[in-house]
């Protein structure tokens, strides 16, 4: 799927089914990651997007692979939806030489510049100023691309958010700001960090369009991103989209989750975006099982690929610091 224009018109049934596959794949990848973590096969931390898969599916399918992606620390789904190769992704996750970043980056920094995927970012809001530069570059080069920029609710309180949205607005940059509001920034509930109802209200401060959508609804996200992309490509500047969702797992590996109730989590688990989307696009239980099966095999193969991949050679340790 790399470099191929996935979708330019409405979602076809085939497209939709592929999106469903990607959502299932993302979840499986993360469940597997959890397991590997538990088995001590993974060093470091990771941020799981389980429960939030609809956003990546909806967003990536609304733009093309000639566009750009700026991803976050919770970005496995976006990476896969953009067309990331599962094997090399898994290899990166295990820190192997043939991972996307030669094992130097890991989950929090996975990138594939070749496919205009400009990388995940470990810094909350860290990709927002970068988005301005990508937008500016597009504008100067007149290439008609857009840049999809992801961030969480927590990032919307960094100064970088403000500077980025203001610059993008005054210069009409082709940026889609997609805020994944999963109601928590680590342990901080949304209403403890904001005095407003919706993050999209902040669009007012920049004179741009803001919209809040159901982040567990692939079509709603897709629609909002498609509209934003259209505005962007026609020189009408950035859009702030807020997609409401929920993270099922803890923030990272070491989270006791004392800041929320089991009931709340359970409630949201009932809003699982995967069966919801499957139902909406008329995928039967049997088809779903087939997808699950396919995913299982894909993951297994990827794990094998990654585990059999070589470790980086220590003699190459300094490679890549300078060009």
């Amino acid at each position, binding site marked *: 799927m790399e470099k191929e224009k996935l979708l330019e018109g409405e979602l076809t049934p085939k497209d939709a089914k592929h999106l469903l596959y990607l959502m299932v794949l993302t979840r499986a990848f993360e469940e597997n990651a959890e397991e590997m973590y538990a088995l001590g096969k*993974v*060093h*470091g*931390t990771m941020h799981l997007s389980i429960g939030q898969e609809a956003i990546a599916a909806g967003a990536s399918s609304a733009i093309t692979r000639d566009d750009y992606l700026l991803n976050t620390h919770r970005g496995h789904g976006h990476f896969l939806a953009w067309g990331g190769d599962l094997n090399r992704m898994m290899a990166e996750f295990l*820190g*192997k030489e043939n991972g996307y*970043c030669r*094992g*130097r*980056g*890991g989950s*929090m*920094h996975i990138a594939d510049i070749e496919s205009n995927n400009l990388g995940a*970012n*470990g*810094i*909350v*809001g*860290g990709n927002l100023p970068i988005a301005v530069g990508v937008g500016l570059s597009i504008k100067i080069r007149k290439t008609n691309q857009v840049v999809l920029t992801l961030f969480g609710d*927590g*990032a919307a*309180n*960094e*100064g970088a958010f403000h500077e980025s949205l203001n610059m993008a607005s005054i210069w009409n940059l082709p940026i889609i700001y997609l805020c994944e509001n999963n109601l928590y*920034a*680590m*342990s*901080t509930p949304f209403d*403890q*960090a*904001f005095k407003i109802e919706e993050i999209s209200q902040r669009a007012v401060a920049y004179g741009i369009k803001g919209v809040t959508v159901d982040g567990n609804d692939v079509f709603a996200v897709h629609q909002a991103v498609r509209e934003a992309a259209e505005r962007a490509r026609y020189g009408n500047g950035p859009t702030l989209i807020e997609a409401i969702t929920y993270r099922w797992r803890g923030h990272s590996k070491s*989270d*006791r989750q*004392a*800041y929320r109730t089991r009931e709340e989590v359970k409630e949201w688990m009932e809003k699982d975006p995967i069966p919801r989307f499957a139902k909406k696009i008329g995928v039967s239980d049997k088809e779903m099982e087939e997808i699950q099966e396919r995913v299982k095999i894909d993951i297994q193969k990827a794990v094998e690929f990654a585990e059999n991949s070589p*470790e*980086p050679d*220590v003699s190459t*340790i*300094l490679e890549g*610091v300078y060009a």
Partner: protein
Amino acid sequence: MRELTYKDALHEALDQIMAEDDRVFLLGEDIGVYGGAFGVTGDLQEKYGKDRVVDTPISEAAITGACVGAALTGMHPVGEIMFSDFVTLSMEQLVLQASRIRFMFGGKATVPMVLRLPGGSGTGASGQHSGSYESWFIHVPGLKVVMPSTPYDAKGLLLAAIEDPNPVMFFEHKLLYRTKGPVPEEMYTIPIGKSQVVREGKDLTIIATSVMVMRSLEAAQKLAEEGIEVEIIDPRTLNPLDMEPIIASIIKTGKALVVHEAVKTGGFGAEVAGRIVESEAFAYLDAPIRRLAGLDMPIPYNRNLEYHAVPQVENIVEESRKIVQGVY
């Protein structure tokens, strides 16, 4: 004496000073219910309430500025920057405000604040969550820079930092949080600006900071088996830097090795080398001062590369051996 972990020693210091001094309050990201990313603040919000253990939005510049403003008006804030890497977002408030306000205002203002900064590599947190930044801040007059390596020092220096009328950068190391050591129950301070000899020896002077003190001590044991006795000095405060014990030691050993985790170029070790050369110890040096430090690179994700990016026990052993045997 009772043993505590480094983390618990810090927690106890905060707890005790908060009970005693209501000018002290804490602020930072996820320091309340979550208890801090590394658990240092733990239950303190439960104990002292949300007004004194303030959970903030993710806004590092404002967290730091909030410390400055509170300090200027009589409070003694202790801010936590979740990972010291994020201090890159606080630099304006630290460098152009906190450190300079007093001087620019003719010495008529004080900014008694502490910023706690967990740093360092070794946890697989990769390129943006594993840095060591203390060297920048010794280059900022008006700031003090503290970096404890033991639970005992952690408690005593944190209490001293909170009492200090100047802004203090307090660097903690992630790998030290679980280390244990004797810690008195009562409150005590360790003077800021005092280096300490943590091991005596006659063959080589090692100046090490933070987690490298621990590694140097381990290396010293191995070296002792070979008959090499190293003296280890932990500056504990990087600025103002107490050179006296370092100079005295080098006059004795004639050899010096600085060990830190931060990348070598432009690091604290350079300043130490520069000062040794300017001191009376210069005349006693019978070998070049060596610096063993992090490679000039970001911290890699891969566990093995990460391990090799910063000094380990075996590197200290080897480097010490070379110096003592005059391989350089």
